[in-house]
């Protein structure tokens, strides 16, 4: 029998956001995290000073920011779920991480050391700090987790895939519990330069649109969001609070240039239909990447699956956090389903993706559909459903 997979814990490390309560409260006010990050990039960034004391200095100095974020978010998710990994069967726990860029904040410094002082001056921790699977490794080492674990790199769909993969293994009975989500550090000179080239190439996002907190566009963020996924029966046995249930997942490809998002709506229609099955969405959290041609295609795809389905983009309070982005949308979906309330929507859409979910109370919010896309044409969709014990 296929098992149900439920979300019992959420942990976040985001700009100006340290708790799940912060995450929800930030949607209810007019304050924005968005600011200028470089000449061509706007978005939000984490104040690392606010994280001091969360990780022992001896360990912290070996890690890139994206791994620090992941360790802190993981601990917060476990605390939120009331799970003590020490008492769990570690062979049946896994760690699933979405990431896009790896550890460039650490690497940038070490490249300066290499070219200014020579190879001996490069930190011996460079090798274990930069690579995208570093958070997975550090989380498993820290908690002694021995079950199947994996890191997924798929641009902004990375953590939709990491969560869907974790849920699939729990469903199949291969794991009982998973720490799943994503992490990203983007506030580095190298990453901002790389992203600026996307902005310049596509020449479509926010510039020269009015630069306000409520402006759509290619806004960049960072941070980590991790979820505790459990077998539904296990969660029920320990009387855990259930935020929501992980539903269907779909992934399709519409091959295009490797540095472009597909402007063909058909792959996304197929991935959304694959994820939904017979479910009807009550709300869509679109990918809404902020690039006009890609967002036009997504808007057309959403129209195709349901003309009257509302859509909101709560992540734009922060911008796009790439590897963490899918997990952030899942966290928003969990909170909305748990509270049976939509986040207010205040954004002035300069991109064609509809933001038509303004409102608060929703009496029967059952299924929320989330989209994520990757450069080169991959598209993913995941359904989060109301948790019922």
């Amino acid at each position, binding site marked *: 029998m296929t098992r149900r997979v439920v979300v019992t814990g959420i942990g976040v490390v985001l700009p100006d956001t340290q708790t799940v309560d912060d995450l929800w409260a930030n949607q209810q006010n007019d304050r924005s995290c968005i600011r200028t990050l470089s000449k061509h990039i706007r978005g939000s960034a984490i104040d690392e000073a606010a994280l001091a004391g969360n990780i022992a200095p001896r360990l912290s*100095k070996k890690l890139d920011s994206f791994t620090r974020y992941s360790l802190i978010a993981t601990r917060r998710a476990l605390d939120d779920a009331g799970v003590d990994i020490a008492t769990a069967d570690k062979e049946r726990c896994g760690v699933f991480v979405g990431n896009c860029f790896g550890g460039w904040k650490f690497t940038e410094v070490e490249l300066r050391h290499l070219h200014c002082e020579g*190879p001996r001056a490069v930190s011996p921790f460079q090798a274990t700090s930069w690579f995208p699977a570093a958070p997975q490794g550090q989380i498993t080492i820290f908690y002694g987790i021995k079950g199947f674990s994996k890191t997924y790199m798929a641009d902004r769909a990375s953590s939709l895939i990491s969560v869907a993969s974790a849920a699939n293994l729990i469903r199949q009975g291969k794991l009982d519990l998973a720490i799943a989500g994503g992490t990203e550090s983007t506030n580095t000179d190298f990453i901002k330069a790389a992203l600026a080239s996307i902005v310049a190439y596509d020449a479509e996002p926010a510039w020269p649109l009015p630069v306000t907190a409520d402006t759509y566009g290619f806004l960049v963020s960072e941070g980590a969001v991790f979820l505790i996924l459990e077998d539904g029966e296990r969660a029920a046995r320990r009387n855990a609070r259930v935020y929501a249930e992980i539903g269907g997942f779909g992934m399709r490809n519409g091959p295009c240039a490797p540095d472009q998002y597909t402007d063909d709506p058909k792959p996304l229609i197929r991935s959304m239909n694959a994820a939904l099955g017979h479910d009807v969405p009550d709300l869509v959290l679109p990918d809404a990447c902020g690039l006009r041609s890609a967002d036009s295609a997504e808007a057309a795809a959403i129209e195709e699956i349901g003309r009257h389905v509302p859509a909101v983009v709560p992540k734009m309070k922060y911008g796009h956090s790439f590897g963490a982005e899918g997990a952030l949308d899942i966290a928003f979906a969990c909170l909305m389903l748990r509270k049976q309330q939509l986040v207010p929507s205040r954004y002035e859409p300069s991109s064609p993706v509809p933001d038509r979910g303004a409102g608060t109370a929703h009496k029967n919010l059952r299924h929320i559909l989330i989209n994520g896309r990757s450069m080169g044409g991959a598209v993913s969709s995941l359904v989060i459903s109301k948790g019922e014990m």
Partner: protein
Amino acid sequence: MSGRDELNSVVLAALTAFLNDDDVDIRPDTRLEDDLGLDSTEIIDIFVDLEKQLRVSLKDIRFSDLKTFDGLVAAIAERVDHGASVTA
């Protein structure tokens, strides 16, 4: 203060800075791996710091040959005495 005492202080300061733990008590017979939990990568980081301070190469010292704090100081003293120069 003798040269060995001075070296002892420099190595102790580098080790203490790395560990960043006020509660740790380092004595001559303190075991690097068993008591302080140091591993081979961590000792390289400490060596690189010491190489900058002492202007001496510590490249050839094997972690597996180092057992205690006193042994660490002795191994570094040997390099200092032989005037091993820093090479990038």
